[in-house]
């Protein structure tokens, strides 16, 4: 199964289960959770079922393309189910069958993993899912986001696409994954890994990045004051990425770290609060649809 066939299979599976198929966000995010399709939509009472691929950018994980398992940008497949269905775990196992993993022939295990994002003021309980000893998915029942207690609880399923693909294709190096039509992952992204590793670790302009962190944070606060919640959240995402670059660059000391994270979290929490108010003012529109957010009935 090529990378693109894997994505297609997941899209087909989840759209068959009533999910909306959405698109990645248009700004750098460390995980699909940051996409407003997850972070904002899990807030409040409205039902929401969505699935999308998300390129996840983690500057610190770059290895100049020399490590077979670690890269600064990889792909997640994100599924968000709100409220979390009673049989969410069996459905997830079925999704593995849909991508060619027969659960009766493999050791599939759920290992405790209490997820927490200090930057987003978010936390959940769940597991890492292991396939024959390898982590292929993060499975989380969201409890809190943006400091808001969540009701209903959403289930978040995050597939690590490269990991799964390496397993399915039996290759030991991420660069060797066949993306599609005989083209390898490395052919597409190796140069990007080299350049971005060099950029994040050695070249990114530190004063410039510190400056835009401040400016982005101010912009987020200003937009909040103006009642423009979605643009404000855009700048939360940007701050988070700028922070990650500065962190990779080694420019943030241990003691400063906490305060930078707290600054991003503060805005994220205010965004969450205001978002719920906004949806309430709109009358929680998705509550009124008979099938909630569903594109098709399952």
């Amino acid at each position, binding site marked *: 199964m090529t990378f693109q066939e894997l994505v297609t299979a997941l899209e087909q599976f989840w759209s068959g289960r009533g999910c909306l198929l959405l698109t990645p966000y248009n700004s750098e995010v460390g995980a699909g959770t940051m996409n407003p399709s997850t972070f904002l939509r899990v807030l409040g009472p409205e039902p929401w079922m969505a699935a999308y691929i998300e390129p996840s950018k983690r500057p610190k994980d770059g290895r100049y393309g020399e490590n077979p398992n670690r890269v600064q940008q990889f792909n997640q497949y994100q599924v968000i189910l709100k409220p979390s269905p009673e049989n969410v775990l*069996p459905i997830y*196992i079925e999704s593995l069958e849909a991508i060619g993993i027969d659960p009766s022939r493999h050791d599939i295990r759920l290992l405790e993993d209490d997820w927490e994002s200090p930057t987003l003021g978010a936390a959940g309980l769940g597991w890492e899912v292991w396939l024959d000893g390898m982590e292929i998915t993060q499975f989380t029942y969201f409890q809190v986001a943006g400091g808001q207690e969540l009701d209903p609880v959403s289930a978040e399923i995050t597939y690590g696409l490269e990991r799964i693909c390496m397993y399915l294709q039996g290759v030991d190096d991420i660069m060797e994954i066949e993306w599609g039509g005989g083209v390898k992952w490395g052919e597409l992204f190796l140069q990007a890994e080299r350049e971005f590793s060099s950029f994040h670790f050695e070249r990114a302009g530190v004063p410039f990045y510190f400056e835009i962190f401040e400016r982005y944070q101010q912009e987020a606060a200003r937009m909040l004051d103006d009642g423009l919640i979605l643009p404000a959240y855009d700048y939360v995402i940007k701050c988070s990425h700028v922070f990650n670059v500065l962190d990779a660059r080694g420019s943030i000391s241990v003691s400063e770290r906490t305060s930078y994270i707290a600054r991003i979290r503060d805005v994220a929490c205010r965004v969450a609060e205001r978002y719920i108010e906004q949806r309430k003012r709109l009358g929680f529109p998705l509550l009124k649809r008979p099938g909630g957010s569903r594109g098709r009935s399952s």
Partner: protein
Amino acid sequence: MKQDFVLEVGCENLPSGYISGALDQLRMLFADGCKAERIQYGGLRVFGTPNRLVVFIEGLSSRQRADEERVTGPPVKVALTENGQFTRAAAGFAKAQGVPVDALRTIETGRGAYIAVVRRIEGRRTSAVLKEKIPGWLRLIRFPKTMRWDGSDFRFARPVRWILAMLGERRLTFKIGALSAGNVTRLSPYKKEYVTVESTGHYFAVLRKKGVILDQEKRRDTVRRLAGEAARALGGSLIEDEDLVGSVSNLLERPTVLTGSFDRSFLSLPREVIVTALKSHQRYFSVAGRGGRLKPCFIAFADGARRNKREIIKGYERVLQARLADAEFYYREDTSKPLSVLAEKLDGIVWLEGLGSVARKTGRMELLACRFKSEWGIGDPGLENIIARAARLAKADLASEMVKDGKEFTLLQGYIGREYARVSGESDEVAEAIFEHYLPRFAGDGIPEGEAGILLALADKLDTITGCFILGLGPTGSQDPYALRRHALGLLRILIARKAGIPLPGAIRYSIDLFGKEGIELPGIGRELEKMIIDFFRQRLTSMLRGEGFDYDLVAAVLTAPWEKPVTAREMAAELQRMRNDGELTGFVLAMKRVTNIIPRDMKKPVDVDAGRKAMHAFSGQTPEALGFSPALFSEESESRLFEEASRTLGDLLRIEENAHGGRYLEIIARIVPAINRYFDEVLVNCDDREVRDNRHAFLLGLHTAFSLFLDFSCITGE
């Protein structure tokens, strides 16, 4: 009629560390609950896997035990007339209770005879009681973290997806949150299929047939046995690890053992790095070959028999390969430069917010260790150089790729430091001291052997304790986030095991000063902080000596006196215990208490080190005027004799060598006993002549004050 009862709480995978605690609570909730509800049973057992918590009660009676309810009314003398007729008061009580007057009984109470209504309460059916009570009991189970998963308010560690509750062949129906209990179980939370269960016996048969080992102890034993067999089949022996056995057996229901291998080239990594890479994420067991060297193999467990073991093992091997490759990368990065280069980065690592960097800490450690060295009086002059070097490098591994950022290898701090020190060409003494300064890391861990290791271990622990107390982070109740109790116990264990006669109060003062000199603001006034830390050590030492089996009063006698050296304190407690066991203590303590008891209460003061020292010098230097008495006023020979004896004894105690055994102090003190006894046999202390009497009181008070420096005899009971 008696029936068996089974309850199964079916969960999506519970964290492995939560299972035992949940089972203990379930056992208690059901035992206490049945007792409170007057439900009798033969036996109660609990079982658990990640996917089910099970309560099994054998021979449960079908009804509650009948009971009596008594409502006490007026006393008989008010309720009955002289000829035994009920009075108006009795009639009123009967009416209020809704019974005819002739249903009233007379009962005897502790306060006399009373009129009462005695009602029999019939037992309800057990099934009805359980249906009503179980939801409440389940809600009482506590976990370190809980969650919600559906619209209900039922919280648990992970989602509960089904509940099976059966009494014999009947299912008990009740609701908890959004769930309804029934007679169905699931073999796996990953599957939608249910199995309908016909009876309690059938329930256990169903799970057994599918290979589920419900009993957590049995599962542990199975994992241990299978791992051992697999290691032998690989021609080696299992590196035993009960932690790992425990966590593996609580991650699965049907242990199936698999073995795999890794590239031999990784064996060049430090051994513990390999063992940790296998253990901490992947939870694989390591195998030792001949001579204890690791074999390039591992033992892993899957849940349930699987058809294609080969492919699963290949998966395991591939993941392990990646983890070992990471470790190798860290190792190569770290060892490409000397350890001292890593140490330079400690400047930028905060130790505790408000107390500066780790580099500062190592600086204080060096100074403290050198002070300990000179007080202990050991080591040749070269030792200070070793201490200085080892202190500088002691925490350097915190800046290494291998240890930093809290990954699995962070657990290996100290060990990694030692390995890197060796690679960097540091001397063996320095390398060992780097490793040993963290010891003991847990109860039962080894303690440092080398001199530099011992001194730095003491210094690191005391510095941590002092620092945390400065920040107000001392332990309170069950809260001890910085493990200061463990640090204190470690420090005391080292001092005692290595017979290091180092006085603590001075060291604590010095340690506080080191923080003060760095400009760190000290809380409290005067010596308050110092006293808090000494009290903290006294509590730790008390519980440690009690743990060794010394009697409470003897430990108190030693530690209420102004003790300074933990070693000496322990030796004194041990000697007192020996004396008590051999019947020697009574005479000794009685004599000393005679002195104490005769001194008028208003003259006695709390034990005071300066006053005690002054008294010792006054006796040994024969300058009694310093204590306000004069031998010229002595009238009996035994008075002068006791004065002479006291001068000699206290003089001996002053001259005793620095690191004398605690027993030696007691031996010297005991020499004075015959003179004391003779004194009290012959002298009437409280005589009529006021001047003589005051003189005697001052003399005895001096003695008391001096000996109180060593022991608080008033703590000792029964003698």
